[in-house]
């Protein structure tokens, strides 16, 4: 049923801040939607646009990129580079018919476990409202294999 839809969010989390924020949210037992599949990256600048497109094609309903606040990036300006890419990527994805809410960039410091959890909750609600993406199946007209595989692999 549509109202039970549990979106899949692929989360690219910076090792130095947001990944620790997610850890903190866990140890502090913050309750938030179990929708994010976290992937640790060394910096938001490591997130190539290809990663995002691939996640969307392979079954993600949304992609969350989370990193250090401007001025706090471990590699000085990696997060600003990420913001430049992300801004252009959003404009391009609009042309592909992908709603703005499906790809988000947030800043979450290592101490901001609660903020990260809130971002995931917020995005989950937005994706619920938008409904599933299921690119291969619904846009490319392929069989639903990819999504099942993804659910078994990472959702199980």
């Amino acid at each position, binding site marked *: 049923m549509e109202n039970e839809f549990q979106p899949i969010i692929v989360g690219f989390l910076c090792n130095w801040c947001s990944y620790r924020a997610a850890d903190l949210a866990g140890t502090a037992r913050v309750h938030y939607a179990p929708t994010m599949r976290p992937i640790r990256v060394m910096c938001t600048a490591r997130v190539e646009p290809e990663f995002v497109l691939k996640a969307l094609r392979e079954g993600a309903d949304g992609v969350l990129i989370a990193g250090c606040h401007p001025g706090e990036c471990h590699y000085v300006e990696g997060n600003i580079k990420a913001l*430049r890419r992300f801004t*252009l990527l959003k404009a391009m994805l609009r042309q*592909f018919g992908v709603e703005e809410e499906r790809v988000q960039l947030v800043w979450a410091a290592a101490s901001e476990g609660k903020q990260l959890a809130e971002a995931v909750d917020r995005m989950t609600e937005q994706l619920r409202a938008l409904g599933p993406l299921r690119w291969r199946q*619904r*846009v490319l007209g392929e069989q639903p294999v990819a999504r099942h595989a993804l659910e078994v692999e990472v959702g199980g």
Partner: protein
Amino acid sequence: MAKPTFAMYWAASCGGCEISLLNVGELILDVDAAFDVVFWPCVADFKYQDVEGYPDGFIDLCLFNGAIRNSENEELAHLLRRKSKTLVAFGSCAYEGCAPGLANLTTNAATMRTVYTDSLTTDETRGNLPQPVSQVPEGEISIPVLYETVRSLDQVVPVDYIIPGCPPEARQIAAVLRAVLNGMPLPAPGGTIIGAGNVALCEECPLAKNVKQITRFYRPYEIVPDPGICLLEQGLVCMGPATRSGCGALCPQVGMRCEGCYGPLDGQDQGARMLAAVASVVAAGGSHLDEHAQAREIAAVMDTLVDPAGTFYRFSLAHSLLRRARVADSSA
């Protein structure tokens, strides 16, 4: 001994690939001498039935240009695959969809409206739309079915080789033809790229790169670039960083940005790579600004890049990671 057989076919294409083959000059006479042409609708009157009558694997070398956009294209792709020993995706349309593939950003209905109703030079009062089936005195005739999604040749049948380019450079075609004519071994088949380089176009582009950052983008008609200097650093969206070498960087050398016709490098998504390259030449969003001002300044610069999807994927959309846009009535 009978001569080896040669075929060339056009599916959804502009015809430029056929011309590019003739651009090899006198070498075409050697091709004619060495091969028996058994199918080539552009230059000789063969019928599809002739091809159907050939035994499987009868055609030694088939150059297939054009994307797969309708049922006729698809039928011929299957037929020529069956009848050919070596099937080559010739040119950007067959390789990656090229300009026809840009239709994947919209719907068939919208494309038809633009062509048959909305275009300024169309007399829309006649309301003439192509009819799938028509009655004529001789009986019923039908036209091929237009597909919602344009595909590359290798998305429909396996191809042995790919020669990129829009169109492929004569020099590169000649090198491949000479190799075939002299019986030299080609690399192992299986969607293998031949007649092109293996590095980014920037590496064969002689324009000076000064690692300069920019604060806005220009469309080609808006500025006359300084000669001798990298176009991307002057604000023109030159696709060099995301495009396969092989043409000799023809366009940038005459002041025209590379549009990306040789397609992406192995395993890359051309649009995504270009997006990353473009983002790294933008100067906006310095650390002296606060978070909101940073985001605003970056957005303002990116806004000057008109039509990112159409620019980054001008040639490779149908073969890219996403392949097509998601549209309201998307039924692929």
